[in-house]
């Protein structure tokens, strides 16, 4: 995963202003900010509210509504394991328990060394090759214990 830039209000302001006139542009703005910084800084909420003439509560409400938007940086790698029905039917729950035990974190948490964030995802649309996962945007399917361990080792490196 490309390393995110450290928080910078000037860059953030430029990103927001660039998309200021996009109709319904709040989601595209938040995606762009997260792409740049890896999360949505508290200060970004204030900047967006100012520039788009919204209340901070409105912006905060949107940031917190969507699972994708983070309010703090994730680990260096993000491992998303599908927890939905099709993957459940192919042993996904056991793989989830294995991933959680191996990394020593619950779903939604980041390892103490900051290397890996483990997240659930509800369907990657790879149900015909379940169980499936996504490591930093790279999709992997037909997972078994061996493949999972190899992926986690890759993430932990």
């Amino acid at each position, binding site marked *: 995963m490309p390393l995110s830039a450290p928080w910078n209000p000037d860059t953030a302001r430029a990103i927001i202003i660039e998309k200021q006139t996009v109709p319904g542009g709040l989601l595209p703005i938040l995606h762009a900010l997260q792409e740049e910084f890896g999360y949505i800084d508290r200060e970004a909420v204030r900047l967006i509210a100012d520039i788009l003439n919204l209340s901070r509560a409105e912006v905060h409400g949107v940031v917190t*509504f969507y699972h994708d938007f983070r309010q703090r940086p994730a680990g260096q790698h993000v491992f998303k394991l599908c927890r939905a029905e099709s993957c459940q039917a192919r042993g996904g729950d056991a793989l989830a328990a294995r991933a959680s035990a191996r990394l020593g974190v619950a779903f939604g948490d980041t390892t103490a060394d900051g290397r890996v964030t483990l997240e659930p995802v509800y369907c990657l649309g790879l149900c015909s090759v379940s169980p499936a996962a996504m490591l930093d945007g790279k999709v992997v399917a037909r997972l078994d214990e061996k493949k999972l361990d190899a992926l986690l080792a890759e993430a932990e490196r």
Partner: protein
Amino acid sequence: MSDLRIFVPGDAAAVAVGADEVARTIEATAERIRTQVTVVRNGSRGLHWLEPMVEVETATGRIAYGPVGVAEAESVLRAAADNAGAHPLRLGRPEEIPFLKNQTRLTFARCGIVDPRSLDDYRAHGGYKGLERALAMTALAVVEEVTQSGLRGRGGAGFPTGIKWKTVAETAADQKYIVCNADEGDSGTFADRMIMEGDPFVLVEGMTIAGLAVGATQGYIYVRSEYPHAVAVLSDAIRTARKGGLLGDNVAGSQLTFDLEVRVGAGAYVCGEETALLDSLEGKRGMVRAKPPLPAHKGLFGKPTVINNVLSLATVPIILEKGAVFYKEFGMGRSRGTMPIQLAGNIKYPGLYETAFGVTLGELVEHIGGGTATGRPVRAVQVGGPLGAYFPRSLFDVPFDYEAFAKADGLIGHGGIVVFDDSVDMAKQARFAMEFCAIESCGKCTPCRVGSTRGVEVIDRIIANRDRVANTALLEDLCNTMKFGSLCALGGFTPYPVMSALTHFPEDFGAPPRLQAAE
């Protein structure tokens, strides 16, 4: 001599099982053995147990090999280069593989065949014939054609597409919109993703025809963020179509103005609900709106809006090209045409199976799908995503049809079928349905927001055998409240998986097994 054309799917499901590495290995090997090869990253044919399925073009059609891993890539290339010769993984002509041969591919006619990045290829395979015919008709006649075809919303609700279009067409406004719902969040479904990745121009063409029919000049495709491959292919297709004069002003040299934009969701399942999706497109929380007003009257930014699923819009071009009568002749009852059915979960032959409505659930699971991948008996089949009912084998004679499924207390939804073997714990599945609803509820209405959390608690008590009989009655009552009191399908349909699990598999909830009629 022209290059050898080799097809390695760029479809995310193929990529997830190594297609990128296979493509790279083939290219590197070709260079090493000095063979001129062009690798085309086509969509998937939908025979997913054979992915990555590599095809080579010959004078008499394509020959497929699969499933090809990196280890086999070199030997497959050598066999392919040797006049599509013998190899242990050689499958022969893909069109002759029974799973594909027995399908009726209308919406998916080109998927897996064409190069999704090539407008020329799309046109060479019949693309833009639908728009061509539509441009020669009046807008009213286009709407009428879609209405007559019997096409119903493939997202799940099954509402007649033509009626939706007619309402928008008849509503006067300075601005109208076409919105494509590509927030395919249901587990067990991937048809939208496949068409966006494998034949994106068909969606662009379908939306353009919709714009023409109702007088909308701007369209949005709302794609879920879990589909980065689809977002990339679609964005590319839109740029190419614009460059080719098929989007923007004077579409295809006509007076029509229509343009498109891809918008990416942010991981909220409820945004697959059309009004929540519209709020999300407007840059708000994805909260469900009360209806009326209908989106057809007051939709995106308060303007009349057609909002249709990917498959509905992607089916429009063939209806316009071949006519309503052609399309209507497929299907049964009030379910006309074909349905791209998705076979997933614990199934031997997973993939995409497009066929006329009317095929039975048992035929799909046992014959076409080949039963479970684990080889154990099929116990339950969930149809229609996380809000769809679980069917036992005793209901395998139900035909795939909107009304027949409704009669069996289920829904076909977006056409996803997830198979479970006999190791499944149905009480756990029922609990998951409630848990999922609690995670994804937008929070606007009480039955869904609070009911789902209480539902998890009640099921936990049943599983723990605490006042089981009383708690089971309470769960039924709660499901009834959610079903009739929720604002949208999330809270309203969560009772389907819960109640079907409870009704058909009571033994998993600690109750005596249900006496089944003799099979």
